[in-house]
């Protein structure tokens, strides 16, 4: 079953200075249930606008969005119940303690009183915040506030979780914890939509990705397939004895050699047979997500 279906969604804004501005342009994305999907794009690509529309905060100018078959525009509240969202901006309640923030927020999602007490402890323990339960949320450190926002998003056990740059500005240890938590939630059946500026993070976590730029989808699909598509089709190898005779097409690059690849298995076998024990190392070069990103967007991240 599709967890998220976005069909032909466009969002335009009318501004006094720029006139009509199209932030999201005819975007269609589907995410299957149980996947971790990355939404990537340079700043101003339209990611946040798209997330706001999925969250039911912004109404699409045209097109439809449904979460587990529930139309976000027609049945906003029903769709919102299925969602958990960790917004990009770190915000904290001024007056309330961590426990109170979670108690009232989950209450607004209809979590029962008894369940809330148990869940608050569970989630805070998992996020290493249990000892901060009775502290005012506003006095937490930035990383702790980020964890509190994650706790808010998952307390009601959403079927679909949106994490908008959840690891921005957090230390390595917490990042690892967030990754572990994302994997665990996913293993429990939560579908996750993840935006990040750390491309290695997307490579690490996501099975599929959508790259958007200038409001349009420029690439969408399985991460491995995309990387394969953009790989450089080159086999790198190093030799112990550099005086060996070379196969046609081999080029020297410093201390190593490159061989143009047509079929990975066959070419590897050909090189191994030719060089034999003289081969020090051999590898094919798959495109990193960063390569794909830069190629498609012509920009830095």
């Amino acid at each position, binding site marked *: 079953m599709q967890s998220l279906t976005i069909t032909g969604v466009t969002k335009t804004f009318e501004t006094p200075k720029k006139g009509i501005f199209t932030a999201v342009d005819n975007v269609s994305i589907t995410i299957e249930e149980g996947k971790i999907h990355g939404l990537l794009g340079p700043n101003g690509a339209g990611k946040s606008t798209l997330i706001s529309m999925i969250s039911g905060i912004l109404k699409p100018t045209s097109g439809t969005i449904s979460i587990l078959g529930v139309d976000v525009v027609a049945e906003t509240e029903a769709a919102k119940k299925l969602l958990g969202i960790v917004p990009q901006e770190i915000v904290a*309640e001024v007056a*309330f303690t961590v426990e109170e923030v979670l108690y009232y927020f989950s209450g*607004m999602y209809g979590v029962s009183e008894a369940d809330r007490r148990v869940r608050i402890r569970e989630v805070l323990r998992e996020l290493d915040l249990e000892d901060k339960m009775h502290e005012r949320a506003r006095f937490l450190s930035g990383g702790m506030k980020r964890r509190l926002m994650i706790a808010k998003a998952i307390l009601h056990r959403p079927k679909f979780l949106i994490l908008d740059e959840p690891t921005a500005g957090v230390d390595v240890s917490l990042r690892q914890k967030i990754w572990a938590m994302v994997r665990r939630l996913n293993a429990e059946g939560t579908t996750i939509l993840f935006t990040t500026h750390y491309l290695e993070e997307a490579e690490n976590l996501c099975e599929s990705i959508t790259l958007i730029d200038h409001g349009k989808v420029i690439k969408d699909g399985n991460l491995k397939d995309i990387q394969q598509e953009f790989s450089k089709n080159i086999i790198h190898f190093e030799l112990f004895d550099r005086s060996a005779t070379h196969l046609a097409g081999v080029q020297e690059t410093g201390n190593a050699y490159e061989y143009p690849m047509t079929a990975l298995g066959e070419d590897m076998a050909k090189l191994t047979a030719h060089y034999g024990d003289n081969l020090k190392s051999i590898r094919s070069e798959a495109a990193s997500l960063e390569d794909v990103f830069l190629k498609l967007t012509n920009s830095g991240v």
Partner: protein
Amino acid sequence: MMTGMWALYAREVKRFQKILLDTVFSPLVSVLMYLGVFGVVAGSRTIGEGPHALPYITFVYVGLLGMMMVNSSFSNPSFALIIAKNVGNIIDLQLVPIKAWKVGIAYACAALTRGLFTLVVAILATAWFIPGLGIHSFVYLILALVLTGLEFGMLGVTFGFWAKNFEALTFMTTFIMQPMIFLAGVFFPIATLPAPWATISQFNPIHHNINLLRYAVTGYSDTNPIVSLGVVVGMSVVLFGIMQVVTRKNLRV
């Protein structure tokens, strides 16, 4: 099971309970100071003569309670929402699965609760030295309090969503609300105003809230209480409509 609207209401009640010094005791001090000044100035003056004469201090006292109700109910949601906008956690209201009209109602009901809470504290602290205080009409009293709390709660919600910053709120309270309250007949019968102010004051909606409460408590009214009730109900209905539009617009851009 606690519904989302109830949880939001409970959160907003909890919020004002956390800052009682600002939300309850600060207005109480204002009332005490007004009473001190007017008690000295008014002496034993009365409104009207004979057996139905109303001590002036009692007249002012009920007006002050009305003023307190108006201010407290307006402040609760307007401050909470403007702070939420400034801090950024207004997004919580945009994310939760609660319909916009229910968000507005939850905030307005919390405003009513704060208004009533503040009023009860003020009455407990001051009523013992106000002469001739009683309840003239229990039905009118309930209507006056509930409708005033909700009406200004809804105005506070509307304004809280609409206003961009605290400057706008200061402008609203200082240049619009306060003059309207002072010309609403809190401190004097509007009939004593020179023309055309007496007539103009009839069009001041806050006058009808004060008048209704004063009639419910003392039996005295500047304007027919039925008319005041009609105006207060009418204002509440209009504000409910406006609040819905503004809330929906702000929670779903």
